[in-house]
């Protein structure tokens, strides 16, 4: 197939769709609004297929490990494949997603590790604070001090010892930290607009066509 169909048409779709979605926000034109509504609906349909592709990718790669009996690996891969297949079967038996097994899987297989690992972040945050949050230079000193005061602000025992921790903590987050975030957001905004323009003008296309 020609480079036109393989490369140029997809790039053209990106630009046309992107500009349409942008225009819909600024202009009160009914056709545009309807068009974008249709597009977003299509996107949500395609999205379902992307997850299917993901599951297929997972099953293919992991069944290879199982078949090859890959060292240190095959058992975990088998569990992954079993997990995918079991839930998929449960999900395709009527009444589909309203089947109680799915709810049960969600409640007891899906939620507990997620919640636990979320909570485990505490350990990593505190140990990393010890290992890495050090005043090596002015920048990291700023990081360290501001982290320290916010920690103290959130500890009731520290605040009841000295009310000042609250005031300092609030001042830091409302004044210098807020200024820092603003600069951060402004940078992100400019970067987004620039990347969008480079993409829409087909200048930067490493991601979309693999650099073709």
């Amino acid at each position, binding site marked *: 197939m020609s480079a036109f169909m393989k490369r140029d048409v997809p790039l053209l779709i990106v630009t046309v769709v992107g500009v349409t979605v942008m225009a*819909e926000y*600024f*202009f*009160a*034109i*009914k056709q545009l*609004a309807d068009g974008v*509504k249709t597009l977003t609906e299509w*996107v949500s349909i395609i*999205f379902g297929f*992307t*997850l299917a*592709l*993901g*599951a297929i*990718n*997972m099953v293919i*790669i992991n069944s*290879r490990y199982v078949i090859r009996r890959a060292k*240190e*690996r095959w058992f*975990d891969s088998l569990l992954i494949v079993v997990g995918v297949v079991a839930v998929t079967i449960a999900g395709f038996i009527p009444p589909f997603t309203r089947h109680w097994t799915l709810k049960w899987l969600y409640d007891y297989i*899906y939620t507990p*590790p*997620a919640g636990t*690992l*979320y909570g*485990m*972040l505490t350990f*990593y*945050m505190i140990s*990393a604070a010890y*290992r890495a949050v050090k005043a090596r230079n002015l920048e990291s000193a700023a*990081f360290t001090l501001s982290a320290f005061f916010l920690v103290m602000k959130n500890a009731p025992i520290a605040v009841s010892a000295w009310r000042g921790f609250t005031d300092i903590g609030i001042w830091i987050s409302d004044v210098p930290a*807020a200024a820092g*975030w603003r600069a*951060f*957001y*402004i*940078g*992100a905004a*400019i*970067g*987004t*607009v*620039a*990347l*969008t*323009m*480079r*993409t829409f*003008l087909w*200048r*930067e296309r*490493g*991601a*979309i066509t*693999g*650099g*073709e």
Partner: protein
Amino acid sequence: MLHCRHYACTDSRKMISEHSWSEQALDRNCCTIAQLLLTLSGPNDCPEKEATVLIIAGRVVQFVFLLVFSVAIVIGIWLGGRRKFALRRLPALEAIDEAVGRAAEMGRPIHYNPGWYTLDSVEAPQTVAALNILNELAHKAFKANVPIITTLIRPDVIPLVDDIYRNAATSEAKPEMYKPENIRYLSGEQFAYFGGVAKIFGVEHPSASILMGGYMAYSLLMVELGVRHECFQIAGTASWHQIPFFAALADYTLISEELFVAGAYLSQDPHLIGSIFGQDVTRYITLALGLMGIALSAVGSKLFFDFLKL
């Protein structure tokens, strides 16, 4: 006729909140499905009067700025073809060569993750920026015979990574480096994904871990995993809620806008470098706008705020 209660005339619009995602929620308002032409009569009495103005009230200034910024970038791209611009060094991007060099020396792979967001989300540019970096990285790595293991939390980028691998392997004349099994989707649940990455680190011992794109809570687990396995780490994100962990723990960090220019920076394409100059022009405009606002609000004028509400 349908009356559109536009946001510009409500209290909530007057409030300025700090965080972009809540703002994005604020911005989704009913006017996107407006069936009528709206008024431009100013923010205080907008709902009822009708005039034939095409741009939705409250979005005029945004539109003008978007236009001006886009034009600045386009001019930058054009100028880039005729002039050479010098760029500030970005150590995090130069460290990519170091990462590849180390991996080649040790004979180990590099781990890459292009972030949390799907291609159709409002944070899609972060993911695309991350993939642009992966494209440059793949060329360097495959040239040095270093495999890249890309772990994914979003399956919609699988084809893009596959294309990048294939083209990099072809253009570096290393067809054996194209290995689709090095693209691994590990579920869209961040903590399950983390478990999968931990397994890969334990078995394949990557020498470097490069984390780019938008992130969620798992960012901290990822950098700590890298520390545990003594990986050389380069991390970059424009997600405000995760950048602190990268800044504190990774060897090199790309902050906010630096992530978006990374692809252009690495490619060394003069047009793209020109567009970075365009970005700086928009920054001067932003600074000028800010100074103007300060001057006006110092003399007690509300003009600046009224202007922004247009």
